[in-house]
């Protein structure tokens, strides 16, 4: 079995998680990654969805952030004001997952508009929980598929703050959290450079060439001096992930 690029993104993200993590989980790749981690090497990982479900253990992936499955399998469910006050702002989350329509080289994200705010070419969904997830979680993992319209040179709108215009900008705003520490894509893994905070490819997924990654990025992308290869997906990782997706597909089809 060989992982597809999207599967590889999910698996690479899952590997970064441990039993000690408390994750603020978003829908899509983050949800798949967190639950894959939970079903493989991190059975005690704590998963929180912004709908209020604390320590949830869904058997299928939710389509929305508030599917009944999340509540049914949660330790308990709190109100949304409490979720944002006591749990997110409370500083109790170690890892927040974010994605977006667009990202720049300092891992700032745009999910608001393409074009001017008042007369947008494309009106995107908006920030939702992202602005405060980005500032309140211990660190942020971003999962996004590469492409030059997504990895852009300049964002039309900063929906959530990564590293601003470079190292030190978070601290200057009084932020004590680390911000984005990993960007996990379908082709590679990036990290902010320790000196400049600019995103730098540290690991290429198996079979991916530098040129392919460069083509998927709208700015001249840096590569780490010691570039490694992401270990290939194991049989177990792939089997558990595919099983999870298959269960999910059956459940969502049956929910009508």
């Amino acid at each position, binding site marked *: 079995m060989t992982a597809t690029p999207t599967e590889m993104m999910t698996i690479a993200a899952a590997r970064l998680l441990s039993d000690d993590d408390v994750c603020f989980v978003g829908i899509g790749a983050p949800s798949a990654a967190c639950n894959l981690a939970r079903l493989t090497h991190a059975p005690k990982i704590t998963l929180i969805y912004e709908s*209020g479900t604390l320590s949830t253990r869904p058997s299928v992936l939710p*389509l*929305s952030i*508030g599917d009944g499955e999340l*509540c049914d399998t949660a330790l308990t469910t709190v109100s949304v004001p409490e979720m944002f*006050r006591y749990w997110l702002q409370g500083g109790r989350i170690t890892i927040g997952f974010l994605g977006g329509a667009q990202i720049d080289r300092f891992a700032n994200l745009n999910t608001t508009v393409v074009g001017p705010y008042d007369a947008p070419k494309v*009106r995107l969904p908006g*920030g939702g929980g992202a602005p*405060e997830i980005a*500032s309140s979680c211990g660190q942020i993992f971003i999962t996004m598929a590469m492409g030059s319209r997504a990895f852009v040179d300049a964002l039309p709108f900063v929906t959530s703050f990564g590293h601003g215009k470079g190292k030190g900008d978070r601290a200057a705003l009084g932020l004590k959290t680390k911000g984005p520490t990993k960007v996990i894509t379908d082709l590679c893994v990036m990290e902010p450079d320790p000196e400049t905070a600019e995103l730098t490819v540290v690991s290429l997924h198996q079979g991916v060439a530098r040129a392919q990654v460069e083509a998927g990025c709208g700015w001249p992308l840096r590569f780490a001096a010691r570039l490694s290869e992401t270990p290939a997906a194991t049989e177990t990782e792939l089997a558990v992930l595919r099983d999870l997706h298959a269960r999910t597909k059956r459940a969502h089809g049956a929910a009508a």
Partner: protein
Amino acid sequence: MVEFVSLGEGVEAVLSDGCSVAMEGFTHLIPHAAGHEAIRQGKKRLTLIRMTPDLVYDQMIGMGCAEKLVFSWGGNPGVGSLHRFRDAVENGWPHPLALEEHSHAAMANAYEAGAANLPFAVFRGYKGVDLPAVNPAIRSVTCPYTGEVLATVPALRPDAAIIHAQKADREGNVLLEGIVGVQKEAVLAAKRSLVTVEEIVEDFGPRNANAVILPAWTVTAIAHVPGGAYPSYAQGYSKRANDFYIAWDKIARERETFLAWMKEHVLEQGPEAFARHAGAKRAAA
């Protein structure tokens, strides 16, 4: 004191043209039946308030009920865009839609402040982002102890709140369970409220001492609308119709298919249209 009413009477009682309304429900317990009834009653110039606009507001916006949207995330969860919302913002169809945009944290705090009868809420947010530049309602206060500058948002005090809940008892107390979102806050923050419920019971019977309950004297009107959250759901009664959320993407993408669907499934229906979702769902729950 609360009154038991029909869905039509309830929507008529709490909504008037030009008023602000929060139809809340965080994925769970979204008052879809009430939204359809508002469309049938031809409500106009509404300020729609909702953290996650969802299909119910996509439909109301597409049918021309809204002149303004106060929101924090306007998408079809796990599916993609709300096409009617986008068409209104990008193309002004059926007419322009003013936006007041926040983050979830801001809106959740704003409802909380409204319920607490405060004029504003304080939270640590909006650091380094562009939203404050386009939303003058986002301001700040300085902590009188530490000097830290914190974000503020005006309290939400809607003219009306409309929510869906699992049960009311004969006295008119309302019980919610599961993902309770900001519904309690929305009702407590609003001037008047309509609650549609799956069931009206004699009394709630044995329950957790800390169950989430809105006392009768905090609610304006209750309507018995089983299945009234469809395609959202009521924990214990139904499951979220994820397939309909997926199907909506295609229905709403074009104006023609949207209008045809609304005509058939909303305009030509009556307040009882959601009962079939209750039957089907209850069996599946």
